[in-house]
Every structure is written in C-alpha cells, then in structure tokens.
C-alpha cells in the first residue's frame, strides 16, 4: 500500500514540478513524463500483489480535517487501477514525444493537470472512504476539465469543456446524495461500515438509481452521454485515450463499488441495466454512423462499449437473482474482461487518431483517404484495433463479448419466459451491435487509411516520429497478447468477480473458472492459429505466387477514364443505406433542393447530423430551466447599494427570527 500511495504522490509532485518549470519546456516535459512513468511502474507492483498474488495489503489511514481518510486496495480497486496505469504510462509517453515539443503554450500547466488526473484516478480507486472518494472524484473531473479546455483558443474546445463540467457536476450531485444516504444509515463514511448497515428496501433502490445517474454520466449511459463525444473529440488525442480508456471506467468502478454496499440487488435493476445498456449501445452506433469526424466516431464507440458492459452487469444481477451462479459468473467475468479489453483498444484508436491528426491537420473523414501508404504503422495499428473493437476474432474484444454471449446462451437453456427475454436481449442485441460496429469501423478504417487522398492536403509525416509509432506498436502488441493469453486473465479476474458478489452472500464455485476457461482456451488457440496461418499464407503468396504481378493498372472505372479521387465513395455515402434505415433515430437533417429542370441552376446540398438526445431532450430541458432561472435575474443588478440592501434585509430577518423564536 505504501508503494501505491508513493506512486500517487510521485505523479502528483512531478506534476507540480512540471508546473513551476513550465518556462523551460524540456525540464517541464521531463519531470511531467518521468514522474508518470515512475508512478505507474510503482503502482504495478501492488496491483500485481493484490490481483495475481492474492495478497491483502494493509489499509492506511490519513487524518483529514473533517474525518479520517483511509486508503486500501482490494481486488476491485486493483482491477480498475490497471487501465489507469497502462494508459497513463503510454499516453504520457505519447504526450512527451508529440504534444509538448510542438505546443508553444503552457507545457507546465498541461503536465500538471495530466498528472493530477492520473493521480486523482489512482487515489479514487484506492479510497475506502466516502469523503476521499468524492474528493478524488472531483479532482479527477476538474483535472479532466482543464485538459479538455487546454486548447482554449478553440471555441469548440471551450464549449466541450464547459459541457463536460456541467454534465460531470450534475452527475456528482447524485453521488453526493447517495453517499449521504449511505453514511446516515451507517453512521460513518468508511466503506466497511456501509456493508454492515441495514438499509430499507426503498432506500437501496434510491441509492442504486442515484448511482446509475451519477456514474452513468461518466460512462455515457443514454441519454446522459451528450457531453462525451465533444469532450473526447476536442481534447488532445492522448488525453482522449485516458479519458475514454480510464476515466470513463471510473464510472463502472463507482457503480460496481456501490453495488457491493447494497445487501440485495433487485431484479428491476438488472432489467434497467440490461435494456439501458442495449439502448445505449444501439443508439451510439446509429448516431456514430452519421458522424463524419474520426474522433467523434471513436467517442461514440466508447459509449457503445459502455452499453455492452452495462448489459453484462445487468445480466449478472438478474442471474444472481434467479440463482444461476454460473450465468452470473460468466456475465460478470465478461463485463470485467470487456472493460480491460476496451481500455486497450480505445487507447490505441485514439492514439492512432492523434497521429493521423498530426499528419493531416484534420479529423474529417471526408477529407482523408490513402493515409495508410505513407503511415503504414498507424494504418496497421488502426486495422488491428478496428477488428478488435468490432468484436471480431482473432482479437481480444471478441473473447470478452463471447463470454457475454455465452451468459445469454446459457440463459436460453433455462425454462422461464423471463430468462428467454434476457437471452433474446443479449443475443439479438449483441448481434446487431456487433454488426453495426463492424460497419462503423470498416468505414473509418477504409476511408481514412485506404483508397487515394481525397484532397490535395500535403501529409506532414515529419511530426510522426518513430517514438509515436512505438506507442502504437506497444498497444497493438498488448491487444494481440490479450487475445492469445486471455485464458490467463480469467482466473485473476474471477477473484474480482467473487469480491463483487461477496456482500450478497454469494460465493461462486471455483470450478466455474475452469468451465469458462475451457472455451476461451479453444478460442485463443483459434486466434493464434488464424493469425499464424494467415501470416504464413500471405508470406508464401507474396514470395512465390505473386512473383510476376503487375501493379500498374488503374482501378476499374467502368470506362470513365478521367477518374479523380473525388469519385471515391465517401464517408457519408458509405453509411447512407444504414442512415436511411435508422432515420427515425438519427434524424439526419437534409437541406438543399433536388435538381428538377433540364438545365439546372446552381444548387446545394447539406446534411446536418446532431445527436437527437441533445437536440430533442437536453436543449429543450435546459431552455425550460433557463426560463425559470431568468426570473431571478432581477435580483442581480451589479449595483452595490442593492447588495448592501440585501444584506441588511437578511440581517433584519434573522434578527426577527431570533427574537420571535
């Protein structure tokens, strides 16, 4: 535990040194990045001890002004610290080699908030006390706000950061309330006292829904996701990688942590999570298909994966209710494995998007194309990540989705209609989500990296040093390793699962680990075989069979010899059939006139894709709130004598109150 705390402190102190040495870019860069490396490597050891070596670390209590704050690292905390450590390290490296040398402004402030974010998240997972938890949560959110707002000269970044701040604080209100209820029932802020407290049935439900609201904002639960795409898009790419790969996982951490405080999980919660997750996943993909900004697409895919994870948690809760421990165990293991796998994939995708942005200076897919030829490493990494994120074998996301699928299949063999409904939601839902995700990522991969460039924009690959490629290679290798060695992950993650359900009085049979490892082992072997055979076959084909190949022919153009890059299929045309099907959800707004006359005049065509939840739910809602609050504007004149008058009136009122009562 000492080591973990010193890691947090090291990262934090490194950030402060970087802040004060901001004038000397190199020094600031060194301290910021180096403290991150050091801290994350320090933190690995306690995580390993808890997760794999099954050691219990002694809790440490720190005296705080209001109460004492204690930190400890149980299996759940250690599991959620894993993505923070991995992405914190890789993104710090990415930042050190790309952003700051280029960035003329405030490298010190940048590193300060980056390190604060990582340190905040690490202390969040380690805190076993509500006060420290909320403090760390706020530190994390505020640091993230400053990181998103870093490109302050951009109007969009400012707006995104503002949206993030509002959304995140609306969510925090829920968290405040839920801890208030828990603390008043338990008579203390320590997490252990929460376990033993006797909660009324009703207040448990209130706590759950507050948690779903408060933490749902962070994970992007529909419709609380609207801050998410913009924030991830306008932050620097390595920050987006941390936000999406690690910070949004903190929402799951909070939700799971709160679930462990509650003695009974109601069936309704399971259904809400299952169908809420399903709607989140499908909605995210449908909206992502109308978006043309590369990073927005990746952001919405974060939301989609959050949906999948929520579905799995819901399945677990339902199966526990129905006394189906194997199904619950499979679903929870799938959820945890998916959290881990998604962190790797999303980190890689955002870093790839970042290096594409450095080279092209744009995020619009419509203006890219053919980048793969000049950036082969980025293209390969993005290709691997696309296959993985679409949930296709041979990569790791397939394995975690497979476990979730398996819990659905197992539910199908039960005989109650309810279990069939669960199974139908999981199987049909995941099937559709998988298919649409493949559509989304074939589009991004194909239109950004393949084909020919759509504009004359000159690629600036000078910025893409081999250091950048190094981060991409590391994460790609991690994805491949997580696919091939997936069976080894099952048993440490199973320990986390049993910790989650321990407060419910449920213990899972240790034999379950072997039950679900068996198919996973076969799949991993399959993955290895598919990868190896494909590589060997490609090698043989290119070495021996394609010897006399010619590669000077034009692409088939149907006899139209003057083809330009503009005749290529574009991002919006690729998703047009899908958008037509889902038009009632995505509400794609099309402006422009159809050509009618034989000799048409100049005409224009414009499509506009907004998030329906934002347009039809939040903007009207905030308008109503605004109308209500505007009534109070009359009190705020900015005139000093009026304010003095208010004070006088207040004092008078208080005096009367004191006298009367």
């Amino acid at each position, binding site marked *: 535990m000492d080591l973990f705390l010193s890691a947090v402190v090291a990262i934090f102190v490194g950030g402060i040194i970087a802040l004060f040495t901001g004038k000397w870019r190199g020094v600031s860069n060194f301290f910021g990045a180096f403290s991150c490396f050091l801290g994350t490597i320090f933190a690995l050891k306690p995580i390993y001890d808890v997760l794999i070596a099954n050691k219990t670390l002694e809790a440490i209590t720190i005296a705080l002004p209001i109460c004492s704050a204690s930190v400890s690292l149980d299996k759940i905390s250690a599991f959620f610290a894993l993505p923070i450590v991995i992405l914190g390290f890789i993104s710090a490296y990415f930042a050190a080699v790309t952003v700051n040398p280029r960035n003329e402004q405030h490298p010190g402030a940048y590193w300060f908030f980056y390190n604060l974010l990582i340190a905040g998240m690490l202390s969040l997972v380690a805190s076993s006390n509500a006060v420290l938890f909320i403090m760390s949560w706020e530190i994390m959110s505020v640091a993230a706000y400053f990181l998103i707002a870093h490109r302050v000269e951009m109007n969009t970044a400012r707006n995104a950061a503002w949206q993030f701040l509002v959304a995140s604080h609306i969510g925090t209100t829920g968290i405040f309330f839920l801890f208030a209820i828990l603390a008043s029932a338990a008579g203390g802020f320590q997490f252990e006292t929460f376990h033993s407290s006797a909660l009324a049935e009703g207040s448990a439900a209130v706590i759950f829904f507050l948690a779903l609201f408060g933490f749902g904002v962070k994970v992007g639960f529909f419709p609380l996701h609207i801050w998410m795409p913009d924030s991830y898009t306008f932050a620097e790419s390595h920050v987006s990688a941390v936000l999406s790969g690690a910070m949004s996982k903190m929402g799951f951490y909070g939700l799971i942590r709160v679930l462990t405080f509650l003695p009974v999980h109601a069936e309704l919660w399971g259904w809400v999570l299952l169908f809420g997750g399903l709607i989140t996943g499908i909605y995210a993909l449908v909206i992502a298909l109308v978006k043309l900004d590369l990073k927005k697409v990746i952001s919405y895919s974060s939301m989609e994966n959050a949906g999948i994870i929520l579905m799995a948690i819901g399945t677990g809760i339902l199966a526990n209710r129905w006394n189906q421990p194997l199904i619950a165990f499979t679903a929870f293991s799938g959820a945890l494995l998916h959290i881990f796998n998604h962190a790797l994939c999303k980190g890689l995708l955002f870093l790839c998007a970042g290096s594409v942005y450095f080279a092209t200076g744009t995020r619009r897919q419509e203006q890219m194309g053919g980048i793969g030829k000049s950036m082969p490493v980025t293209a390969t990494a993005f290709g691997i990540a696309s296959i993985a994120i679409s949930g*296709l074998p041979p990569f790791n996301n397939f394995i975690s989705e497979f476990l979730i699928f398996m819990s659905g*299949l197992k539910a*199908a063999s039960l005989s109650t209609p309810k279990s069939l409904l669960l199974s139908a939601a999981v*199987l049909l839902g995941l099937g559709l989500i998988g298919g649409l995700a493949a559509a989304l990522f074939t*589009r991004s991969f194909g239109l950004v990296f*393949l084909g020919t460039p759509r504009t004359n924009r000159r690629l600036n690959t000078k910025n893409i040093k081999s250091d950048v490629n190094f981060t991409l290679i590391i994460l790609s290798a991690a994805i491949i390793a997580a696919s091939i060695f997936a069976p080894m992950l099952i048993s440490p993650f199973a320990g986390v699962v049993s910790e989650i359900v321990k407060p419910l009085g449920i213990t899972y049979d240790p034999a379950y680990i072997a039950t679900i490892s068996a198919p996973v082992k076969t799949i991993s072997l399959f993955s290895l075989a598919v990868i190896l055979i494909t590589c060997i076959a490609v090698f043989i084909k290119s070495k021996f069979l394609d010897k006399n190949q010619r590669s000077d022919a034009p692409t*088939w153009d149907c006899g139209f010899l003057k083809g330009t890059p503009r005749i290529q299929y574009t991002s919006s045309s690729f998703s047009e059939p899908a958008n037509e099907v889902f038009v009632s959800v995505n509400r794609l707004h099309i402006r422009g006139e159809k050509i009618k006359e034989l000799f048409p005049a100049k005409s224009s065509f414009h499509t506009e894709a907004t998030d329906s939840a934002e347009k039809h739910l939040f903007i009207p809602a905030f308008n109503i709130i605004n109308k209500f609050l505007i009534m109070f504007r009359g009190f705020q004149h900015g005139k000093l004598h009026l304010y003095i008058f208010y004070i006088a009136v207040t004092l008078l009122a208080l005096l009367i109150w004191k006298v009367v009562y």
Partner: protein
Amino acid sequence: MNITSIIFIIVSFLAAPILPGLINKTKALFGGRQGPRVLQLYYDIFKLARKTPTYSKTASALTRIAPVAIAVSTLAALTLVPSFFNNSAIHFTGDIILMAYLLGLGRFFMVTAALDRGSAFEGMGASREVLYSALAEPSFFAGLLIMIHETASLELSEIFSKLSLNFWQENPAILFLILCSWFVILLVENARIPIDDPNTHLELTMIHEVMILDYGAKDLALIEYASALKLWIYSALIVGMVINGEIITSLTMQIAIFTLGMAIVAFVIGTIESITARIKLVFIPKFIVGSGALAIIALILKVAGN
C-alpha cells in the same frame, strides 16, 4: 477430432464448388437451357489460379492480404460445422458464436479490401454488405435461441443432434418459421437472388460482385472458392437443423442423406432464383428485418407453447 470430422472437412474442401454448379443447373433447367457444367466453378478456379495477378495502382498491401484472410477465416469456420450430423472437428460451449464471427472476420476483410482501391463502385457494395449483414445477425441468433432453449445445450453439434424429429413434428410452425428466416440469411450472406444477383452486369446494382471487381487471377480464385465454402457452411447448417442425424446410425447413410440434403438446398436456391426477381434495394432491409420477425414469432410460439 475424430475420423468422421476429418473426412467431412476434406469432403467440404473438395466438394464446396459443386453447390453453385448445382444452383446454376437448376436455373438452366427452369430456363430450358443446357447451362454450364456442374463442375464449372472448378474449371474457373483452376483457370484463375494459373494466372498472374494485376493490381490497381491504388491498391495497398491489404488488397493482397485480404483474399488469404477471407479464405483462412472461412476455413476456420468450417472446422466448427457439424460433420454429417456428428460432432464437428472442434466443438466447445458456444462454438456457433465463434463460427458466426469468423465469417464476420472474412466480411471485414472483404469490405475493407473493397475500399482499398479507391473505386467509385466498390464502396457501394461494401456499404450495402455491412448493413445487410448487421441486420441479418439478430435473426440468425433468434433462430439459434429457440434451438438452444429446446435442447438445453450450447454446442452446435449437440444442438443439432438433440433436436428430435418429435419436436419438429409437434411444432411444424416453429420449424417452418426458423427455416424461412435462416434461409433468408443464407440468401443474404451468400449474395443470392432476391437480395443480390451474382450474374448482374450493372455495377450500381451489385452487392457482393462489385466488391471484388478489381480482383483477378489467384486472388479471385481464392475469393470464389471462399464464397462457395461459405455457401456450403450455411447449407450444412440448414441441413443439420432440419434432419435429425441421431436416428441414422451408419456413417454411409449419414453421408448419403447429408449429400441429398445439400442437393435439395441447392435446388431450392436455384428454384428461388428462377422464379423470383430481385427486390428493390430500398426494400432489402425491410425484407431482412421481416425475416428476423419470423424468427421472433417462432420464439413467441415457443414460449407460449411451454
């Protein structure tokens, strides 16, 4: 892995290109023509395999890798298909998910390779393919769900062997509905009429064919072969679902009945192709979702019957 499954893989490997030949023969029969030979696809594949490929200037390494990846993933999926009503070569809990997604991997390569040449047409096919297959996925799993519910087993071979004749006799409506919805999936995934026409000559209306416009020689041979194999896999699934292999004990009988079943599937596909026209592109999503609705009706019938 037993001897039967090895025989099955070898037979599938060798015999898959016969299916398109049978379909074409059926179509010729309806059209009153002689038609191409049943073994025509073999001739085509061998002819193509001897040629040297020519690539577009725009094509990157992906164009060269994709045919191999498509073939490998389809072959990998084949190892999970029940062999003549017996256990598949590799079988484990939830193997059908891996099978469906391995075919999905093949599709991923097909689609991205289509976008690799920067063509005006190939993206068209790609964009349709990804949508239609995404919509077909839920109806595939809906049919599967009913069978798992009935047999309470999660291995593909076991599901098929436990689906007793009795069950189908008692629930002909369910059988019919699942059969219809899975047959539509077969037509969608294998680019057959009424979804797609493998013989069409207009790029704008193609789906599968347009994605491979720029392929030739060995690559095209691999892709054609993988497509035939995919058709074989889907047909084998339908045959396995309908015919209960447990009651046929001798292997020779199983092989004979399986062969007959595959021939019937090919004949039905050929008949559908002869007597129906292609549906309009804008109606295809409705058609696919409609077929999924059939499977969901079957599911409701099953629940109501419990």
